[in-house]
């Protein structure tokens, strides 16, 4: 069972990928088995004076996300993602959320072997 999260600047799959992870506006979620899109607001993490990336990891862990696509992920968030068992892919910015997910699903799956 896999669930893909993409840091997003808006709440639709056509929104641009947010290059930031912790201070992303939100996360587009895609469940490949159900072919279902949803959206998770990141307002709470954005409001953090510090530790926005860590708050975002907690948000994704609670949502049972298995892989996250973003522009760049900070060092502390990367440690937390590993602890939470969430795979991560950087450099996904410069396209829409839908394009990022499509590109990810076309790639040979390594870190996300369970899908």
């Amino acid at each position, binding site marked *: 069972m896999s669930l893909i999260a993409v840091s997003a600047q808006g709440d639709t799959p056509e929104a641009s990928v947010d290059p930031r992870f912790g201070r992303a506006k939100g996360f587009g979620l895609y469940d490949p088995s159900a072919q279902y899109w949803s959206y998770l607001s990141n307002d709470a993490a954005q409001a*953090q004076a*510090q*530790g926005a990336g*860590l*708050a975002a*990891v*907690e948000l994704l*862990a609670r949502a049972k996300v298995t892989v996250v696509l973003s522009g760049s992920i900070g060092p*502390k968030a990367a*440690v*937390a993602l590993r*602890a*939470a*068992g969430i795979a991560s892919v950087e450099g996904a910015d410069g396209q829409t959320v839908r394009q990022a997910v499509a590109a990810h699903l076309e790639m040979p799956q390594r870190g996300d072997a369970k899908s």
Partner: protein
Amino acid sequence: MIVAIASGKGGTGKTTIATALARIWDGPRVAVDMDVEAPNLHLFLAPSYDGRKRAVLDVPVVLHPEACSGCGACSRLCAFKAIIALGDYPVVFPEMCHGCGGCLEVCRRGVLGAGKRELGEIFWGRAGAADGASPDLRIAGGQLRIGEAMSVPLIRQVRTKANEMLAEHPGDVIIDAPPGTSCPALSAVREVDVLLLVAEPTPFGLHDLGLAVRALASGRVPTGVVVNRAGLGDDCIRAFCHKHDLPILAEIPFRRDIAEACAQGIPLDHMGELRTMMETLARSLRELAEPRVAA
């Protein structure tokens, strides 16, 4: 009595004023440099040091990960995301920790132990009276470790050291506060009897004085203003102080000879009429603080 010299804007002359006040102040006093990110009071007061101490903060470390039940109490308690429970045991980010110790209190299974993060160092000493400073001047300060992001815990330890020095040998306190209006500045002006804000008459100076008044001058603490580089800009600071009922206690003119002397480390009290101005300033501060000190 405790006087803090602060400003919104940096480079307005806090240390210049603090140095002069510390030197001419009557009676025993401790000059405390709370600008631990860029301490410089010691450069002007040239103390001989009595001691230096490494300053550390207690932070959690994961001692027994196997004992963790994953209850998440530590993570829920931490307001700074310094400890988060995601997998089988918590992950600690010691550089985010403010050292409250709450996570160690709530963990019922002994997963966490006490670790240390180095904050920097604190130092203390006494200034000589050789070059005209009035006797019985001690100094305390701190220097933040390079790479450390949090200055408030170190500022607190500098304050603790100053309090220890006062317990040994009572006196007044003159605090050189860090610039700005965020946590370090707020932490430095805590529990003071009188607040002195240094401002320069420029648009920047006015803007940041406004911020400083809103952030630091609570209305409970008597507050005065020194205009530095008076004549440089316009009358904006005077108008502001009049409107907000803030007394202007001194105006240091914008003059080349003063700037040159300051650049050479010569204190204001060595410059003719400025000595009188600083003595008047010290008296005004005592008068402003009097209702609080007496109470």
